[in-house]
């Protein structure tokens, strides 16, 4: 049984559970919509189109970050029901496959949220991107993966703590700061057309490669910590 097929098995199971319960995706969608509305009330984007262009990349990334935070704990909480997590800890299959499968599942649901959110943003904030819009197709998936891969890892780590709902953002945000910065800068570059997002894409790629590797290497350690 190859590693990829085990990852696929975990991914299939997570997607199936998410489709049946729709716990996290509904929460994320509504939460991010609320964030968009709250920010729009705070900044009045239609009267100041230039400012709207400059800040909306950041707002969207922050909205996605906060929304995904609500889903990350949820994605491990379902493993705690009926102690299924113990079955994973006792399983002979590689622990990191469980992590990769779940990270991909979380990534896909956050991407769905972004796909719904992007048009909402364009309408509510009256946006006309001045840079190369197609570059967003690289920026958003890379940035999302960088948030989700660490988020999935730290949500698993928080399972072993008291107040795990509180702890996750406290640990995740400082670690994610460089990738969040890169994602916001690159998105802003595309929206305003003031500068090239290439540098920030490179930062994102480096960040993704480095942290995906560490997460995969260290996941077994935290899964089996007792």
């Amino acid at each position, binding site marked *: 049984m190859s590693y990829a*097929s*085990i990852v696929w098995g975990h991914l299939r199971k997570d997607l199936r*559970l998410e489709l049946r319960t729709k716990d996290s995706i509904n929460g994320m969608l509504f939460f991010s919509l609320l964030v968009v509305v709250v920010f729009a009330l705070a900044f009045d984007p239609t009267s100041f189109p230039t400012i709207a262009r400059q800040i909306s990349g950041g707002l969207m990334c922050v909205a996605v970050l906060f929304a995904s935070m609500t889903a990350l704990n949820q994605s491990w909480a379902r493993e705690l*029901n009926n*102690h299924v997590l113990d079955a994973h800890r*006792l399983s*002979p299959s590689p622990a990191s496959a469980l992590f990769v499968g779940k990270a991909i599942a979380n990534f896909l649901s956050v991407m769905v949220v972004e796909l719904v959110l992007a048009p909402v943003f364009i309408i509510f904030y009256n946006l006309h991107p001045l840079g190369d819009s197609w570059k967003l197709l690289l920026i958003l998936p890379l940035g999302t993966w960088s948030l989700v891969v660490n988020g999935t890892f730290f949500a698993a780590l928080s399972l072993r703590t008291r107040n795990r709902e509180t702890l996750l953002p406290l640990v995740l945000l400082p670690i994610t700061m460089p990738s969040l910065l890169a994602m916001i800068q690159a998105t802003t570059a595309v929206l305003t057309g003031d500068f090239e997002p290439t540098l920030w894409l490179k930062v994102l790629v480096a960040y993704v490669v480095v942290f995906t590797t560490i997460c995969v290497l260290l996941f077994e350690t935290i899964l089996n910590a*007792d």
Partner: protein
Amino acid sequence: MMTVSEMREEVAGTDAAIAVRLHRVSKLYGSFVALRNVSLTLPAGSSVVLLGENGAGKSTVLKLVSGLASPTYGGVTVFGERPQSQRGAIGTMGHATMLYDELTAMENLTYFAQMNGLGESRSELEHIAASAMREVGLDPALTRHVSEFSQGMRQRASLARVLMAKPQLLLLDEPFSNLDIGSARGMVERLIAYLSEPGEDGLARTLLLTTHQHELARPLAKTTVTLSGGQISLIEGDDAVVAGTEVTA
């Protein structure tokens, strides 16, 4: 001077014929002592029931043997190796089902069959899952969600999940809790049948279970080990099971 049990250790060593060996194991959670210097040897083929009150350390023994926890002091081996490296050979069933409520029984078992590396193709995995369900008498409920199952059906599905992998060592934590007498008897019969089948390499299969309902487990277990306050207080039955109190004396 060597005691009898030490000589037996010399002979058997870390031989695979010894299914489980706890050597002077202590387990602490913070400053709470769950187990205190426990030594226990289960030869392959033995069936042992752990008795004791709540908090006596029964579940801790199972956690250590399954590899879910590591001892604070002392050593645990399963078939001569660390429990973590024997995962394929150990089947664990807790009081929780370890199944996803939102998936059907078939989806659950196919998934766990794949995680246990029981087959390559999807049809092969589905076949294994279906026959495991048939053996516990759940084949009419294959496509129903586990959340719709009664408590007895859940326990049987959980048993199917464990037996499907054909483990050499079965660890059951309170398997009969929340079951009516009929379902519990059915489960005991299924277990007796499983244990009487020859295991891998001709070695007989080993069972270690905890329960409050000793009467139900009587047909299963030839030996009883009673724990109290994290120590072994009594061993009855087969003398091939060696308790720590005699070793250290």
